[in-house]
């Protein structure tokens, strides 16, 4: 089955086409890096897959069914902002998402407790979870968010910029954790990032968004001068240096709209 099918999809946000007439098919089971400059539509695409942004045109199918809100087969980790309740312990934060959409009092039975233990163990956060959120580092909070996204055995994980504001060492830890989970649980992972280098060893495919268009394929096919030049609508050079990739705009300036793969 295909994890995601977009056919002729246009996503419009505030009168602007973030994606314009995009069609692509992503088979299930793989680690997909979602890349592109700021405002290219990485977050909007994820919100559309979650049924939060209805397509202006075209059709979106997720795991064989039209995109809709409340799909339990999708796990989602939103871009983290400030912590709302720093005094609250991590476990209660994770637990809030267990059946959180249902009316009534929050009552956690033994099944729910086991499910919380399971996801905390998966991300290695069983001991972290007893500490208040405000005492955790950025990387530790990311683990809890990831645990929350894994509740209810989803098949597709949408991770929105999990590496934001982490240092390179912690970035590598998060990437390898997600990669291990993706393989051991047989998940499809969409992992959006600013920089492609931390994801180079683990990506099966890259989904590059830019200028309203999208390119999907293995890194070697997508991260090339001609493909990126077409997406940006201007000359782009791609330089491979050892194990790293640098994307340069044609006039020799390093970086593009504050977006540079170093």
């Amino acid at each position, binding site marked *: 089955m295909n994890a995601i099918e977009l056919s002729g999809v246009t996503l419009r946000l505030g009168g602007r086409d973030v994606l314009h007439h995009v069609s692509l098919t992503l088979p299930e089971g793989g680690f997909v890096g979602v890349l592109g400059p700021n405002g290219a539509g990485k977050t909007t695409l994820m919100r559309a897959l979650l049924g939060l942004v209805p397509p202006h045109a075209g059709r979106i199918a997720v795991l064989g069914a039209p995109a809709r809100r409340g799909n339990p087969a999708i796990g989602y980790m939103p871009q983290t902002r400030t912590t709302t309740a720093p005094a*609250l312990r991590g476990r209660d934060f994770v637990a809030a998402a267990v059946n*959180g959409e249902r009316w009534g*009092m929050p009552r956690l039975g033994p099944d729910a407790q086991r499910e919380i233990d399971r996801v905390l163990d998966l991300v290695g956060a069983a001991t972290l979870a007893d500490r208040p959120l405000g005492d955790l580092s950025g990387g530790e909070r990311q683990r809890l968010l990831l645990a929350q996204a894994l509740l209810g055995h989803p098949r597709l994980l949408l991770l929105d910029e999990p590496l934001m504001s982490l240092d390179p060492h912690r970035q590598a830890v998060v990437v390898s954790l997600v990669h291990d989970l993706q393989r051991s649980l047989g998940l499809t992972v969409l992992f959006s990032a600013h920089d492609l280098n931390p994801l180079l060893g683990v990506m099966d495919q890259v989904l590059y968004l830019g200028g309203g268009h999208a390119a999907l394929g293995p890194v070697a096919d997508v991260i090339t001068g001609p493909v990126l030049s077409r997406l940006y609508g201007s000359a782009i050079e791609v330089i491979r240096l050892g194990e790293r990739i640098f994307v340069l705009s044609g006039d020799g300036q390093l970086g593009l709209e504050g977006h540079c793969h170093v």
Partner: protein
Amino acid sequence: MFEYDFMRSAFAAATIVAVVSGCVGYFLVLRGQTFAGHALSHVGFTGATGAVLIGVSPLWGLVAVTVLGGIVMGSLGERLQQRDVAIGMVLSAALGLGLLFLHFFTAYASQATALLFGNVMGVDAATLWSLLALGVLSLAGLAVIARPLIFATLQPELAEARGVNLRALSVLFLAIVALAVAECAQIVGVLLVFTLMVGPAATAQRLTARLGRGLVLATALALAEAWGGIALSYVTDWPSTFWITALSTAIYLAALARK
């Protein structure tokens, strides 16, 4: 002190109000919406004085206007968050209007003091029943929305993706807050609603990182502060509201010092 009717009524009223304030206040502090509670109580003052002017019980004026205010604030949602100046202007306009209503109704100067600073010793049987009904209503409402409310508070984007209607939840919650504020104003007055709604909840969140325990602790502290305040007032003959604020502040400071 329990040989007097008015003292028994005072303790009964304080019990109802403290339980409601502790529970609702805990969520208010968790959501970082304490200013909304403060704002609602000020707007409520206008409702109460307006009700007196047209010959209706101030409690019902307070309830009507705070609930309306809560619904409006909830439906404006995030647009309201960066509008400190706008809220401040509406608040002062509301208080000013309340003062004008009082001016037209000069006969009862003590009524104004009771509204602003509360008068738990003056609670009669009819008011007690109204407080009980409103308290049950707000706690029942809270019990219905508690789970999605916690989810939406801690992880709004995820909650939205899972089908929670954030806007509707925000409106419902602020309507419940409005009921709690109206109740609380009967005991400590509109100016000092903070002391029972925010004080115990903020203290509880200092003392425990667990959600369930925090909620129970906030309620227990609100009860202890309300009962203690009335008892001390009986002994010293000082206003009960003073003692409640003093206890609320002292306990919060003690919790701060503990860490």
